[in-house]
């Protein structure tokens, strides 16, 4: 059996900031323009596809994040086992890509998801994000793509002071170390 290797990211606690790893979870990039595409993924995932900028929709298993007018990120709430992952992967690909409605790409390992939790998470973000979180803070489900210390990230407001941050795998170790350094000084 092959071993599953994550970049060296584990759970670290600081005063009112908790940085923790979450892998493996499923992540899929969905792209499409027309209405059929939008209704189709909604149907396949039993989620109403979020069409408003910077928003998301969730059910107990999955989250669907708006990334752009023709792009969405799908990710699973919990660690997901291979079979389900492959099943969902194939199903969506066959229903959408094969049927020429849009594109479906598995990006589970393209992104690393890091959970940020605690009263001071937004202080941590303010150490490196030019983005204005004043409204984002209070709107559950809000999504933003921005820069965090010059690295592209997607941030999903899961719950009060409970964020999921997505960063490209090859950048993740660097960002993780940087976040720890920042968190240790807040």
């Amino acid at each position, binding site marked *: 059996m092959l071993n599953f290797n994550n970049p060296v990211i584990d759970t670290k606690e600081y005063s009112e900031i908790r940085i923790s790893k979450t892998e493996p979870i499923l992540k899929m990039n969905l792209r499409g323009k027309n209405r059929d595409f939008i209704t189709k993924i909604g149907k396949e995932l039993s989620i109403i596809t979020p069409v408003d*900028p*910077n928003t998301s929709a969730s059910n107990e298993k999955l989250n669907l994040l708006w990334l*752009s007018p023709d792009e969405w990120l799908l990710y699973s709430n919990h660690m997901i086992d291979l079979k389900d992952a492959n099943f969902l992967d194939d199903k969506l690909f066959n229903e959408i890509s094969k049927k020429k409605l849009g594109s479906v790409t598995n990006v589970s390992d393209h992104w690393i998801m890091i959970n940020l939790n605690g009263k001071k998470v937004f202080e941590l973000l303010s150490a490196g994000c*030019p983005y*204005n979180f004043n409204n984002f803070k209070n709107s559950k489900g809000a999504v933003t*793509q921005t*820069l965090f210390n010059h690295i*592209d990230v997607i941030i999903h407001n899961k719950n009060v002071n409970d964020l999921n941050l997505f960063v490209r795998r090859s950048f993740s170790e660097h960002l993780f170390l940087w976040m720890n350094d920042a968190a240790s000084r807040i």
Partner: protein
Amino acid sequence: MFLINCPYCGERDQSEFTAGGEAHIVRPKQPTELSDDQWAEFLFMRKNIKGVQLERWNHSHGCRKWFNMVRDTSNDRIHAVYKMGQKPPIE
């Protein structure tokens, strides 16, 4: 640092964007029909306006969408943004 109103994502810091130069320079549909001069015109020659200019920007660290901007290059004031394919909201 500009505060740019991405037509898709809303107001964001300039650092999330990439400038793409003068807008509405359409790539010739039949380049092979053009003379060297005409091709050079498309390739290199620019108005480089001092004043109100239409230009392209990309929300490269956000939604990755290209859009157009009306900006006065003499004072960096942004008058408007509009999506690709749309008409400029000014004269």
